[in-house]
């Protein structure tokens, strides 16, 4: 299906500066398009740059030594990387909002929920305090909080993890965003709670037709939620494909290894295939393909020259000499 | 006020600058007058503020014992007799007095029509009442004045006779400390408490308010019996920090400051609106040498007169005056100050290092020894002690200066001979009644070893003792003078101390302050004080 592009990320590069002159590149050459109404998964191991990608898009790298040094992220015609502060503020929380991994720490501990929600709503919608409060209560009900009035009066620490995440979701959705970035929204939660939240997100996404960029390292979650998936490794996209294709015919050795090394319920194996070695350090990236040191198919070429992210079929891209060359 | 551990009396006070100031006393006075005339400065109000370094301990004149307390209470309480500026005893509440032949009874004829602040009349009964109070309560400092008395007899309403156990040449001086308080106040159950908050004397000022440690404010006594002050009020404010006192005088917050630190004199010297008064000395500074103290090897260096003399020859009093007192001190010429009656001049120990070294060699201390010097921990005292240390280092004596709180030193120095740890003590003494006996007995008499007195040199010279004891009972001034001269000569020659110098107070006040008077030792008298105000 051909769809309207909502967010277009091009050649995004973000570096972390330890001083004026020295820096490490956390993500590089990140390019992808996101369509309206889709759930795009972003998977990869810890430290591969998933969060940095999302923060770069949201322009939330202030107060970190990080800076977007190249590329663009265009949302509805506005290049977020170059937009002015006011423009960005207008978009953030409005057209584009975000949920974070640790719901507990993402809420201001010394502010009651009602204040935090009203603040969010009134920043983007012309409402009185009372209207905003009513809207907040509505949103809480929508995310399945049985007793919104009570929760509104609570401080964050009085809520459980699942509740807080729902509040975060309600807050993120309260201004009808077109794009919701969810950075590992359920990692800190229990399985049964995770099931609740994923269920809820799916439902809301269907109802409102918004797009979700879902960041996770849990392939199970990806399989369940996403329409398309981006796999990142060491700061770069290594594969991009519709979810079914990715699981059925993973083309990058890393993706293959990843999928194989996840235990599946009911598979009955005692020993799992695994990817040896570990993720390279940002400061000392190998030359050539970044996965080469761990790849069982690696050739000299892989070790010397870095492959491009190329289409290997109409809707699948891969960054690997082996697949690209046959 | 008596020295020893008394902070108020010593402090950063100074004294007529050696030769220059006293020699040209007249010139100084003149220049003061000229300055006063030249100045057009006026006080903004008619309230006089005096910045003092310390506070009175208590306003009950029979309890308080230190100089500041007396300075403050003297403005509210009067005595039968008092001193003039030249240490002469002059009448005050008593208009005249006479001594009996045997020198054992003194009869006073009192001024009439004087009323206490509380309205009670002043008469012979009130003198008796003070004596009675002293008899009843042995913890009062009043004790010291009356302990040689036998009785007080009321002859008539305005005549009273004080009978002594035996003749005592110090009586007349000591009576200046016998402050007369209203019998009504003294009869109260807790007289001291009452007197802490109210004045009940006959003085020119009446207590109006007091903040302990802060200030004591008095207003003019409208019913004062003789010509009194013209100021509306008199406030003694406590300003412990030297620099702050100077600043207050400069800004006019204070009209009079006392004492002026010698280091700061130059700062205000040239201020046309400030007059500096250098008063004659009664405070005498010395270092006691414990004659019984033994070195680890058993030798007693200070038992040897040669060593003691060597110390005095090694010590440069002139430099002492210059370095420690900025020139505001005087070379010692006897064992007490020349402003005290019966002073007899001695030949100064002029600094002579060769002689000092020779004496040390003779005594077998050519290589010197280590000795400890205790001193109060105020800046000026320590400064002097370090000077002593430096001087003695010239004859290889290694002095360790141990500055300590006066209270702690008082404890140390009151230990009896068998327990004493005192080797050398940097100290000063000023007799509160400005008499010769009081200037010597407590610190040099053989019966005044601690804890009886402060003879921490543990110097016991029979002849000297005898002279003091005899003189005390004498009634003839010439005889007394002779005895005391002999005693002074003995002590000077024997030198149980290092004689350092006499210093005294420097007061400073604004040119618009008038009528300020002094008692010996620079104690101010505000009886006729006025302010040239707008």
């Amino acid at each position, binding site marked *: 299906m051909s769809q309207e592009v909502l967010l277009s990320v091009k050649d995004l590069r973000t570096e972390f500066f330890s001083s004026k002159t020295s820096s490490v590149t956390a993500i590089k050459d990140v390019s992808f398009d996101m369509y309206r109404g889709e759930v795009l998964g972003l998977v990869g191991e810890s430290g591969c740059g998933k969060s940095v990608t999302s923060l770069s898009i949201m322009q939330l790298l202030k107060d970190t030594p990080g800076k977007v040094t190249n590329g663009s992220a265009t949302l509805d015609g506005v290049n977020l990387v170059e937009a002015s502060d006011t423009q960005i503020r207008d978009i953030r929380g409005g057209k584009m909002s975000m949920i974070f991994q640790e719901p507990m720490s993402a809420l201001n501990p010394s502010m009651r929920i009602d204040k935090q929600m009203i603040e969010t709503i009134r920043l983007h919608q012309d409402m009185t305090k009372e209207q905003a409060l009513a809207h907040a209560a509505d949103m809480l009900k929508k995310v399945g909080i049985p007793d919104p009035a009570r929760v509104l009066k609570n401080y964050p620490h009085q809520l459980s993890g699942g509740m807080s995440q729902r509040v975060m979701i309600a807050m993120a959705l309260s201004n009808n965003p077109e794009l919701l970035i969810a950075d590992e929204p359920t990692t800190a939660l*229990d399985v049964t709670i995770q099931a609740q939240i994923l269920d809820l997100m799916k439902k809301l996404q269907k109802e409102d037709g918004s797009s979700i960029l879902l960041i996770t390292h849990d392939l199970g979650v990806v*399989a369940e939620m996403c329409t398309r998936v981006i796999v990142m490794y060491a700061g770069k996209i290594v594969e991009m494909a519709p979810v*079914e294709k990715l699981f059925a015919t993973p083309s990058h050795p890393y993706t293959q290894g990843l999928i194989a090394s*996840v235990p599946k*319920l009911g598979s009955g194996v005692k020993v*799992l295939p695994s990817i040896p070695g570990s993720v390279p350090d940002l400061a000392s990236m190998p030359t050539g393909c970044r996965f080469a040191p761990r790849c069982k198919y690696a050739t000299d070429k892989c070790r010397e020259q870095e492959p491009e992210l190329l289409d290997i079929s109409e809707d699948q891209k891969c960054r690997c000499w082996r697949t690209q060359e046959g | 006020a008596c020295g020893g551990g008394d902070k108020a009396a010593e402090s950063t006070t100074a004294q007529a600058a050696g030769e220059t100031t006293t020699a040209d006393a007249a010139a100084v006075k003149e220049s003061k007058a000229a300055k006063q005339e030249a100045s057009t400065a006026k006080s903004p109000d008619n309230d006089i503020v005096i910045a003092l370094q310390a506070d009175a301990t208590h306003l009950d004149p029979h309890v308080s014992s230190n100089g500041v307390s007396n300075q403050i209470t003297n403005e509210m309480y009067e005595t039968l007799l008092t001193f003039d500026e030249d240490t002469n005893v002059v009448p005050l509440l008593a208009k005249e007095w006479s001594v009996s032949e045997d020198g054992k009874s003194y009869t006073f004829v009192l001024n009439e029509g004087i009323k206490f602040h509380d309205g009670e009349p002043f008469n012979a009964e009130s003198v008796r009442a003070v004596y009675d109070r002293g008899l009843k309560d042995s913890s009062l400092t009043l004790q010291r004045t009356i302990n040689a008395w036998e009785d007080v007899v009321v002859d008539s309403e305005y005549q009273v006779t004080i009978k002594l156990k035996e003749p005592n040449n110090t009586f007349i001086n000591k009576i200046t400390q016998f402050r007369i308080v209203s019998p009504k106040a003294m009869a109260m159950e807790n007289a001291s408490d009452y007197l802490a908050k109210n004045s009940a004397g006959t003085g020119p000022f009446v207590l109006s308010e007091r903040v302990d440690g802060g200030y004591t404010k008095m207003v003019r006594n409208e019913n004062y019996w003789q010509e009194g002050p013209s100021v509306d009020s008199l406030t003694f404010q406590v300003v412990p920090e030297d620099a702050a006192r100077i600043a207050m005088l400069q800004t006019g917050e204070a009209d009079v400051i006392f004492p002026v630190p010698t280091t700061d004199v130059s700062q205000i010297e040239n201020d046309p609106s400030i007059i500096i008064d250098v008063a004659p000395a009664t405070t005498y500074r010395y270092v006691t040498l414990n004659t019984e103290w033994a070195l680890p090897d058993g030798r007693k260096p200070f038992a040897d007169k040669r060593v003691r003399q060597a110390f005095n020859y090694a010590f440069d009093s002139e430099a002492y005056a210059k370095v420690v007192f900025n020139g505001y001190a005087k070379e010692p010429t006897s064992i007490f100050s020349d402003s005290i009656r019966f002073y007899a001049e001695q030949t100064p120990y002029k600094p002579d290092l060769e002689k000092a070294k020779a004496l040390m060699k003779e005594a077998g201390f050519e290589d010197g020894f280590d000795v400890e010097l205790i001193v109060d921990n105020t800046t000026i005292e320590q400064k002097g002690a370090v000077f002593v240390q430096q001087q003695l280092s010239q004859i290889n004596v290694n002095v360790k200066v141990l500055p300590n709180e006066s209270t702690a030193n008082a404890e140390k120095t009151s230990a009896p001979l068998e327990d004493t740890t005192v080797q050398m003590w940097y100290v000063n003494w000023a007799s509160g009644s400005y008499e010769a006996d009081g200037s010597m007995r407590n610190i040099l008499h053989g019966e005044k070893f601690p804890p009886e007195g402060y003879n921490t040199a543990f110097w016991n010279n029979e002849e000297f003792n005898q002279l003091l004891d005899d003189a005390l009972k004498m009634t003839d001034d010439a005889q007394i003078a002779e005895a005391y001269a002999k005693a002074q000569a003995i002590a000077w020659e024997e030198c149980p101390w290092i004689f350092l110098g006499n210093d005294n107070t420097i007061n400073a006040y604004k040119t618009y302050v008038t009528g300020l008077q002094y008692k010996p030792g620079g104690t101010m008298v505000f009886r006729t004080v006025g302010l040239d105000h707008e």
Partner: protein
Amino acid sequence: MEKNVILSLKNVSKTFPVGKSLLGRPTKFVHAVNDVSFDVYEGETFSIVGESGCGKSTTGRLINHLLIPDSGEIWFQGKEISHISQDEMRPIRKDMQMIFQDPAGSLNPRMRVSELIEEPLLIHTDMSAEERAKIVNNLLKIVGLSDKHASRYPHEFSGGQKQRIGIARALTVNPHLVIADEPISALDVSIQAQVLNLLHKLQEEYKLTYVFISHDLSVVEMISDRIAVMYLGFVVETAPKEMLYKTPLHPYTEALLSAVPIPDPTLHKERIILEGDIPSTINLPKGCPFAARCKKCRPECLEQRPERVEVEPGHFVACHLYKK
């Protein structure tokens, strides 16, 4: 095959005091572990699963004598160990080692790898330095590291490598029982498999018994022989692996199993979505701990704690649905 019980918990409970009264006496208690009983057989992997805060780690600590139970008994190799002193426990620790969830946190950042691994030897043996070094190097090889790493500090290693160091340390004294408290949940997906495989290999080689604590049901299925499901400090179901996954009896086990996301987009299974959150462990519900969230809740569930019943051999469940 004769099954030897190596570890046995009998009605073990543990509470933690929270809040203090005027006199410093605790006013409230967290009921972390309630009336837990199970046996672990020699050579098997016994897993404990359950959601966060349900008392898994506390159970592990109780077994390892890091905590003392309030009541109940813990038998290890035929000895009751729950109330012995630290000194009496020390020799027993040779046979019982623990691996922890957070590999970074469990290694003292200020010690070298060699020091970390030889520490148990220092405590339990009086070997010479060379002997210890030999053992350390050997162990490093066993867990897939090289002896070059011995002189490095933990922060120079990746998460998976750190966990291997932790495992090597646990193996230094040849333990019989290894308690693994979520040993892989802090690791990256691709690393998890490495560590799981290593654990499996070691078990086969050294005939280890594992008490394996995890919240990941897919992992547990792979590695365990028998499984206990905990909820709110209670063991609600105990069963051999096959039975539990094929025929989960307790409604909570069912929900838990169905909530696991399957990494296969072609499968779409029906989920049981539980309402609400896990209740507080301070005020335990009077009846069945799961009653408040249970779809099959009956009036008696609210009133009465269910007994543990053996529905089929080796398959225990504590639920009123299966009352005999």
